[in-house]
């Protein structure tokens, strides 16, 4: 006797959402993938190459696209999930525009928002011509041209770690985990693209937590001659030649340091997605002190929402790299299936 396949709604079409949807679809579930943007793919759409091995981001993108292209998946774009509510028959989902969907289970994969660099006013993002974010730099890599606002070739680039992370002044005490290794990756890419361009990373701690990250850091010093200065940049301004002037303490020398830069790259961190926060508030999800969703147990129940039939996947719970996001999404699928079969 053929049973009607159960229906799972996945909120968010980023890496976690696509992986979770794909895994569920493969197991025969009927999946609705709700994405707020025009296309699924999330922040990965903006990447040129990935750390630590600098493989083209397209490789992972096409894997996910294939995954989410399964015939059991129905993708709804330009839509957000406003609210989820458990009831004895399943989970009722309210979508933007007021439509309601019934699902047997929901996976929340609303992801993260990038820190808005304007908020660190002292760095002058949006004011000084050559202050850009790591995302802007990635876009430059995508275009294959790395240049200043006036079209000239930079001779010195500084990458500022921890912009919007580990910073009480912007209400983010958490570490976004991936920015350090992103900075190292981008520093190497800059050096490879413009061998005569000096590259400096300004860091507070080098958090090379993942496999081959430390090796990449070493390579950046040994092979690519990337410079590292330990200290948080306090302010930026421009001089008469329209070159950026930054101030930092070289904490290893114990002395303040001033340096001119052609381009200053802000390594923007991760924050709880605004859409996710709204969903959390409407649905009664708990948010931790870092604003990310707080799971049932952060050791062994990291996908549990506390609401029956609702599970968390990916960076809506904490900053993660792609590897961890995919693993986390698979774990969410396992939890969902266990719930649906019970």
């Amino acid at each position, binding site marked *: 006797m053929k049973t009607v396949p159960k229906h799972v709604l996945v909120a968010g079409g980023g890496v976690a959402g696509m992986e979770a949807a794909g895994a569920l679809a493969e197991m025969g579930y009927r999946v609705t993938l709700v994405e707020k943007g025009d296309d699924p793919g999330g922040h990965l759409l903006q990447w040129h190459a990935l750390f630590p091995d600098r493989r083209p981001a397209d490789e992972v993108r096409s894997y996910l696209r294939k995954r989410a292209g399964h015939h059991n998946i129905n993708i709804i774009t330009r839509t957000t999930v406003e609210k989820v509510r458990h009831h004895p028959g399943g989970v009722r989902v309210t979508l933007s525009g007021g439509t309601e969907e019934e699902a047997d289970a929901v996976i929340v994969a609303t992801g993260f928002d990038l820190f808005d660099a*304007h908020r660190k*006013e*002292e760095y*002058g*993002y*949006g*004011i*000084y*011509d050559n202050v850009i974010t790591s995302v802007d730099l990635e876009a430059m890599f995508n275009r294959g041209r790395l240049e200043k606002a006036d079209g000239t070739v930079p001779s010195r680039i500084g990458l500022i770690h921890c912009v919007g992370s580990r910073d009480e002044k912007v209400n983010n005490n958490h570490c976004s985990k991936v920015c350090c290794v992103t900075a190292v990756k981008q520093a190497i890419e800059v050096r490879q693209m413009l061998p005569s361009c000096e590259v400096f990373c300004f860091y507070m701690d080098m958090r090379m937590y993942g496999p081959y990250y430390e090796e990449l850091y070493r390579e950046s010093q040994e092979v690519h001659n990337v410079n590292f200065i330990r200290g948080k940049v306090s*302010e930026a*301004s*421009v*001089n*008469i030649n*329209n070159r950026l*002037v930054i101030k930092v303490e070289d904490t290893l020398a114990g002395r303040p340091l001033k340096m001119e830069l052609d381009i200053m790259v802000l390594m923007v961190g991760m924050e709880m997605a605004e859409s996710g926060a709204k969903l959390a508030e409407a649905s009664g999800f708990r948010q931790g002190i870092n604003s990310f969703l707080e799971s049932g147990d952060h050791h062994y129940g990291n996908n549990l929402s506390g609401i029956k039939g609702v599970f968390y996947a990916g960076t809506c719970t904490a900053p993660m790299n792609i590897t961890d996001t995919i693993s986390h999404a698979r774990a969410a699928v396992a939890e969902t299936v266990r719930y649906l079969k019970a």
Partner: protein
Amino acid sequence: MKPEGKKRIWAEYQKEIPDDHFFYVRSCIRQTFFAGSEQYFLKILREDLGKDVYEDPRHTTCTGIGYHGDVVPFETIQTVVARHFALATEAGYRHIAISCVTSFGIYSEILETWKHFPETLERTREDLYKATGRTFEVPETISHTSDIIYKFREEIARKAKYNLVDAATGKPLKVVEHIGCHYSKMFPKYGVGGAEFPHVLVGMVESWGGDIIDYPERRHCCGFGFRQYLVQANRGYSLFASRKKFESMEPYRPDMIIANCPGCTMFMDRWQYTIKEIDGITYGAEGHGIPVLTYEEVAGLVLGYDPWELGLQYHNVQSLPLLRKMGIKADPERRFLDRDGSRLPEPANLIDG
């Protein structure tokens, strides 16, 4: 530089500046060294703009220098400030206009403290009552007097006799603005435009036709720093801070510096002479020094008041080249003559163009 970026920030830091009825508190330094500035602030507000500004002769120093010099405790200064509020309350004023940036910082600090720790407000009420028998209402707003000039900058521009432009070429003057640290660095929301890109002086200068210079050490302290300056042995540190600013602004060849803090105005003016003595360097075009003006003085010039009435001759760096450039007719012979023609004391060590 992207101007829209700054505008975005300025839009975020707009404070409430009342329209009328100010209780005016003077600055120890400004009334001593730039007496014309305070006098003309009152004159401009009352006569040119028709505003009601009340002054109480019983008003005292806020003791800010003592507080920052670690000799006056916080409880004491709260009580002194509370007494000012009591005077305002008694006179029926709810908007304080503060001439001094140090005082402004202290008022901000105290109001924030009372907001976050209401028990300190109660304690202060008690202290003030015990000491003076007075009671007070917490004022509705506090404004630095530069905020008020900022608010009426367009009105002043409309009445302008002179603009901040080179009268001969019509090109805007290059103006360096300097904001006192305690204006908004401690509490950005208390300042017009916040702490990183304050708009208070930029707004005035741009309304009156000048160009603002954004130079690398724009945010740097003038070096006053109370304890640094008060202890003679530490003055080298204080001086060093000013020199750092001058060296950073020098390549832009600025015509003048406009400051909103009396301490900064005094230091950046006086130190130019000290640096000339110690290092043998005079900044500014042709070694005339860079005139350091208060915003009241600049407003006064724009409105066409006599520079010598405004007191520009009592700055170390004299403003004659600047006045000539703006096309203001000022007789150098009359600089140190009183209204009745008698001779005023002439300061030594002027940097004179």
